[in-house]
């Protein structure tokens, strides 16, 4: 009998004893839950319990289940009954719902969202029936929002560490590498390099090193890149916050497969909750002999250190990340040698992203064949996305690769809010591109996205509507890449600077039509001759917007007009004489006193004073403030 069987038995017993006699009130306190006011809900729940002795329950915080637009979420789980989700709830509603459920046995409420995995209540839909969840496939997010991320027993009771157990006890390292190769898992961090191939190279190099230098302190490293630097993406954060053990297990399996001795998790410092949960998870894994010396009683030893990033997007680049762990500026080094040949401190190193590693335990526990049933020929499995921007249902989603963009935006995302028109979907963050309406039926896979000029990236998916200026978006991304450029190589340091200057000129109405030629000339050179991925992909947002939204650039340059009404230098605010009721709200709110008028009189904006701060438009309850004569 292996150790794992004992551990699993312990976990099952723990979980059932915790759940058997006591109800659980779970509040989503991922970062987005907190931003939506989750802490007030937690307080309200605790207060309610304190005031009602008859309510016997534990109040716990859980990670993000993904349905962010319904945050803050309140989940109730009573022994013997299915779990119920309510959201978005206010503190007052929290009190009401808890009292209803626990004291009066009333489950219905206007904020009742779903029943998890059951259809016990006809009035409340099962969670996989609601449109946001129905088209999703949850492999990566298998545990997120369901288990208590601070309890290892929860993870283990849900098949956690079963993959590790199988790898360590039943398989050779070579077989583990082969399993990963067979699954066809591609790196989820960006370019989609097959994980198994990376492992094979590292394993070979580690083997050679061990033969040639038999007395080194270590021979190989596994680095988990958790420095999710993409603005507009939070998939990794959610996984780390909601299911930290899945990543740790993936790293240990990777370590075993390639023959590494140590692992590093390089995590964004901006994710304090993820860091806390990782620390706790590492401790628990060590305590259960799932990490450290002689894991599960085998000869294999492996330990993991947590390193906090310090705020540099370029550290997503493998050689920069290594420099950063070594205590240096995160400036990339030319490759070859690749990290798998000579990485951290010159030792073979693999770097995989959070989602890649999270998939590994599933591949090992269920087998490559089952895992690979999902997805397309060349893009296997599922992929998480942070669906955000101008879309009705924002949140963390996971879909089978090969689904169309339209399904994601309209079926899961519920379309564009406020009756506006879809304009573009941005994938891949600063390294990716903006895809137009014509590409809505594009299937989401590595090849199709690349062909359209974008990339899969780590999973940022920002939806833009007609009020988003595409020139401004390109300028936004270039501002980002210029700021984040490490400054080492010429094309990236100066090329992105010159592109940014051109884009800024255009958004300020000072552009010339030759500027578009300069952009088109610079972009490929920067792409082809930059040192690292940051520079090589920096032109993508410009190239795709130029390709798909050239007319918008031309409108800025030739007509001095920003069709989306965003570029301050090119727009004027006016008040519609018909709709204005003279309520003085905008007049009072205007920070520069640009609005004149009196009660019941039509207000007028002095465009010379106006700073286009948009305050009047936002406070007007009558949609009377127009940009360039349009209601946006």
């Amino acid at each position, binding site marked *: 009998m292996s150790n794992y069987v004992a551990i699993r038995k312990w976990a099952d017993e723990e979980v059932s004893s915790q759940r058997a006699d006591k109800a659980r009130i779970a509040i989503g306190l991922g970062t987005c839950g907190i931003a939506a006011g989750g802490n007030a809900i937690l307080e309200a729940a605790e207060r309610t319990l304190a005031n009602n002795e008859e309510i016997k329950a534990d109040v716990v915080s859980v990670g993000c289940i993904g349905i962010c637009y319904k945050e803050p979420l309140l989940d109730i789980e009573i022994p013997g009954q299915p779990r119920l989700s309510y959201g978005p709830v206010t503190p007052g509603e929290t009190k009401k719902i808890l009292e209803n459920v626990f004291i009066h046995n009333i489950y219905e409420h206007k904020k009742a969202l779903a029943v998890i995995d059951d259809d016990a209540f006809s009035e409340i839909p099962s969670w996989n029936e609601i449109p946001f969840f129905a088209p999703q496939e949850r492999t990566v997010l298998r545990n997120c929002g369901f288990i208590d991320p601070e309890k290892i027993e929860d993870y283990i009771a849900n098949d956690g560490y079963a993959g590790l157990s199988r790898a360590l006890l039943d398989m050779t390292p070579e077989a583990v590498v082969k399993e990963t190769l067979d699954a066809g898992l591609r790196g989820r961090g960006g370019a989609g390099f097959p994980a198994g191939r990376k492992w094979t190279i590292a394993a070979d190099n580690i083997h050679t090193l061990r033969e040639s230098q038999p007395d080194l302190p270590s021979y190989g490293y596994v680095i988990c890149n958790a420095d999710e630097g993409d603005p507009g993406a939070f998939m990794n954060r959610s996984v780390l916050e909601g299911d930290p053990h899945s990543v740790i297990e993936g790293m240990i399996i990777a370590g075993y497969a390639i023959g590494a001795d140590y692992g590093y998790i390089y995590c964004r410092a901006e994710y304090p909750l993820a860091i806390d949960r990782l620390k706790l998870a590492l401790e628990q894994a060590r305590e259960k002999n799932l990490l450290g010396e002689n894991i599960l009683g085998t000869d294999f030893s492996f330990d993991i250190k947590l390193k906090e990033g310090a705020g540099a997007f370029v550290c997503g680049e493998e050689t920069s990340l290594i420099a950063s762990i070594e205590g240096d500026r995160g400036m990339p080094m030319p490759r070859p040698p690749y990290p798998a040949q000579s990485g951290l401190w010159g030792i073979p190193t693999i770097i995989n992203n959070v989602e890649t590693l999270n998939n590994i335990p599933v591949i090992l526990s269920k087998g490559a064949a089952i895992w690979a049933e999902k997805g397309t020929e060349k893009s296997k499995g599922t992929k998480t996305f942070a669906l955000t921007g101008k879309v009705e249902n924002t949140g963390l989603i996971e879909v089978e690769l090969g689904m169309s963009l339209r399904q994601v935006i309209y079926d899961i995302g519920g379309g564009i809010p406020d009756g506006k028109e879809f304009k573009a979907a941005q994938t891949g963050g600063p390294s990716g591109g903006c895809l137009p309406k014509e590409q809505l039926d594009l299937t989401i896979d590595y090849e199709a996205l690349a062909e359209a000029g974008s990339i899969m990236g780590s999973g940022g998916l920002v939806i833009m509507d007609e009020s988003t200026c595409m020139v401004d978006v390109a300028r936004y991304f270039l501002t980002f890449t210029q700021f984040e450029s490490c*400054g080492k*190589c010429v094309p990236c340091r*100066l090329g992105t600077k010159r592109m940014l200057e051109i884009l800024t000129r255009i958004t300020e109405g000072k552009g010339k039509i030759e500027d578009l030629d300069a952009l088109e000339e*610079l972009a490929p050179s920067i792409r082809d*001759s930059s040192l690292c991925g940051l520079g090589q992909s920096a032109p993508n947002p410009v190239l795709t917007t130029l390709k798909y939204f050239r007319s918008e650039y031309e409108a800025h340059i030739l007509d001095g007009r920003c069709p989306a009404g965003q570029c301050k230098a090119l727009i004027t605010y006016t008040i519609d004489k018909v709709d204005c009721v003279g309520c003085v709200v905008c007049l009072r709110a205007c920070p520069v006193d640009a609005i004149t008028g009196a009660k019941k009189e039509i207000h007028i904006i002095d465009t010379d004073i106006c700073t286009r701060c948009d305050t009047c438009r936002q406070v007007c309850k009558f949609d009377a403030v127009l940009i360039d004569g349009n209601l946006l």
Partner: protein
Amino acid sequence: MKKITLTIDHKKIEVPEGSTVLDAARAAEVYIPTLCDDPLLEPFGACRLCIVEIDGYRGLPTACSTPAADGMQVRTSSAMIETNRKTSMNLLLSDHPLDCQHCVANMRCDLQYVAAYVGVRGDNPYQGEKRSYELDDSNAFYNRDLDMCILCGKCVRACDEIQGRQAISFGYRGFSTKITAPFDLPIWESNCESCGRCVDMCPTGALFDKSQLKHGLPTGETKTTCPYCGVGCGLIVETKNGEIIGVRGDRENSVNEGHTCVKGRYGWEYVQHPDRVKKPLIRKYLLEGKKKSEIDKSSSDWEWAETSWDTALDITASNLAQIRDSHGADSIGFLTSAKCLNEENYLMNKLARQVIGTNNIDHCARL
């Protein structure tokens, strides 16, 4: 050591394993432009000018960082390479003052040379903000004009990899990246030892010796050995109009591989100092045939008189001979010089032993 053979622009070349493509190109005497590479430094890959095409390789790898491999086929020029080089060079120059006439590095500037090679001239399609800093003239020997800096990092790497000092570093990032001393203070307030290696390696006019401001380009160069300590660094003395105007390390000398210390590189002014004694000097009493024991040293008898070599040497010879004859050879002592040539020391030894006949010869070896 294992050798590998590769082809660069149809030229076959054999190089030791571990060489880069750029090393191989240099061995084959095929020019590949570069601004950030130096054979003495680790590959860096910043300037992106040494891009090449290699069969079986994706994109445009840089020759400086790509290991040479057996059977490799390398092309150093193609339309694609030229276009990208031109763009990189135009970008570099878009952030560089272009008044070469005012620059100390004019005509010995790698940037100028490579720009001409790549074929980039006056009209730059990419205009924009240029970095602008105050001139740092705080160091006693060299100036730093960061407006001229192209961030090739050679100075930082020379200070780290060769001098082991790390007095300067890359600071900030993006367009704001600059070479900094700690806390952005003037270089004099860093732990810089003024070895001058950064100046030596700078490919532009960003770092230059103060002496260069005065003298312009040298007309002559002489390889020699440093006159200071016992390490014996190889130096190249730069001259013009019969005067020394600069010194740099000799890269071909394996003692120092072009390296120097502050004294070796910057301590040469004494050679031409006005204090140099330019004519033989002799005390007046000797010319007047007086006896030393009888003169008053505060009188004009003890003053110096310039004289001819013949007079000085005749008087010296006769005095030494006379003392030898009257007090014996061992009443004369010789202090030879640890600063003089081997040949001169040998002659001093021969003078003492053969001509005078004493073993009373020593020098400051112990001091």
